[in-house]
């Protein structure tokens, strides 16, 4: 197993080093593209940490991301907390939420789990809007900070590095081993004495934690938080799509989905500004037909348990 040696770590250091000085090398546009790439890399990679080995497709990224962004907004606007306080609180709340969700969804499998997480995300979005409407009231959720795009980029880079480090450590740990067995056959995993419930819940918590952290970090870019924008179901779908495009059985798989996807999007936007959506749709179809196994080519075993 490649995960068991230190080569990725050695290779990773110069990459991160280059990434860290990127803001000094490129203009604002490429920086914002890089922010976009990092945001989706962190989200897709942490998503794949759970969904890759367990093959449970979660469509709840948008909910956790939204919790992060929304808590920052409401904390700063309604409770006059500092951004940094909320940056700490938001992921903790999301992690607790993820633990609860993880516990109640243990019985679900395949597509039922997928759509459960989608319904849950929608319920959270509606509940938050309702609570905001009836109990908090609002003159708008403003996130006014002095953070620049560079600051946000570095924070996202730090999160992305943390996700990769976590994933690398996980690959070497007992928990990671347990998850792989679990993904291959849950019954076998139980027979050999793996606490499958615990493993699944812990991993789900980490995806919730990272998604909320990303949501909280990018909130200052949005300036004005609308619950129905930050709790975006589209985000949940995009994270899954990008990870699938890349491949979810390698730690760096989603990265290989996010980068081509982002660049493809940019090229289409520049050359076909009035038909971006249509062209993107065609590009997707071409990818499916001509790159059948994702960028990494490992998607073939994916979702074995999607079988009804």
């Amino acid at each position, binding site marked *: 197993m490649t995960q068991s040696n230190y080569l990725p770590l050695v290779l990773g250091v110069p990459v991160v080093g280059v990434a860290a000085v990127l803001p000094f090398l490129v203009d604002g546009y490429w920086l914002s593209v890089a922010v976009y790439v990092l945001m989706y890399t962190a989200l897709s990679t942490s998503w794949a940490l759970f969904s890759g080995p367990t093959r449970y497709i979660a469509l709840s990224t948008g909910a956790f991301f939204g919790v992060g962004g929304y808590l920052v907004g409401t904390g700063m606007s309604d409770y006059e907390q500092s951004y940094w306080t909320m940056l700490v609180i938001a992921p903790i709340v999301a992690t607790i939420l993820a633990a609860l969700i993880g516990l109640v969804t243990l*019985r679900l499998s395949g*597509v039922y789990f997928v759509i459960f997480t989608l319904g849950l995300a*929608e319920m959270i979005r509606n509940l938050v809007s*309702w609570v905001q409407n009836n109990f908090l009231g609002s003159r708008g959720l403003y996130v006014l900070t002095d953070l620049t795009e560079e600051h946000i980029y570095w924070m996202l880079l730090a999160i992305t590095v943390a996700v990769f480090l976590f994933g690398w450590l996980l690959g070497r740990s007992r928990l990671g081993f347990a998850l792989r067995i679990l993904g291959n056959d849950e019954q076998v995993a139980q027979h050999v004495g793996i606490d499958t419930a615990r493993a699944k819940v812990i991993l789900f918590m980490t995806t919730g934690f990272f998604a909320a952290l990303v949501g909280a970090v990018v909130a200052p870019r949005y300036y004005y938080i609308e619950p129905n924008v930050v709790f975006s179901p589209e985000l949940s779908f995009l994270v899954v799509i990008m990870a699938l495009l890349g491949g979810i059985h390698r730690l760096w798989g989603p990265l290989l989905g996010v980068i081509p996807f982002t660049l493809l999007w940019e090229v289409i936007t520049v050359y076909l500004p009035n038909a971006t959506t*249509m*062209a993107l749709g065609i590009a997707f179809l071409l990818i499916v*037909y001509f790159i059948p196994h994702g960028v990494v080519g490992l998607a073939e075993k994916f979702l*074995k348990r999607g079988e009804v």
Partner: protein
Amino acid sequence: MDIVISGLLLGGSYALIAMGLNLQYGVARIMNLANGELLVLGALAAFWVFTTTGMSPLVTLFAVAILGFAGSWAVYRIFLAPLVRRSANQGQLEVDSILATFGMSFFLVGVMVSIHSEYFTYSFLASPVALLGTTVALNRLVAFCFAVLIGGGLYLWLNRTRAGLAVRAVAVSPEAAGLVGINVDRVSALAFAVGGMVTGVAGVLVSTFITLDASVGVIFTMKALIIVIMGGVGDIRGSIIAALILGMVESAVATLIDPGLTLASAYLIFLLILLFRPQGLFGRRAA
């Protein structure tokens, strides 16, 4: 009584939205993320024909049904059948069909935006009808009647005809169905096409009382997914009952508790049902 009537009407439109996807996912095994866009396409057709020629959406409906059937058949044969054939297992097919239909949904949104980028809104049969002591909108009542017709028709077709039997056999197990001599490829295409037809017709009907726009399809896709899963994949009764439950719950909560909680409570019911029946109301236990 208000609650029951408006719950039934709402449930009827939810059933319209979900029945097509149930056939497509339950039988043809295609998780069709472009389902909502197809619905909006039906709505756009009704709106466009009505505002340019004044022709009744109830006439457009038949054209949309035919085109929906033929279009979906072609989409399945040309784009999806190759994916079905090349995929070694259900998991691979799901990944491919999710990505492919996601692409199709983008494409359709782009097409519709270029046709009409504003809201699709018009008035058709927007008059009150007194029904059992309450007032309902005629267009919703008409949609409900169509939902009953379509739901009943699908049920009879699936349960009383040879073709329906084949479709149900494929829904249970494509492998076994193939072994007993059913042409799985053809039956899947048929189910996918009928599903597309129902969804297109649903779009026409829904457009008479809900204001849509080119980009709103994903909302309907999500609603349909939730209803299909809540009812159980591959069983048309499940979708209809799930749709009615959601309609009733939303209507009751809106009237008795707070309209602000309607959608939240509908999702809550969905979650609770899955927690107690992890395979949906009528679903079979995962093999």
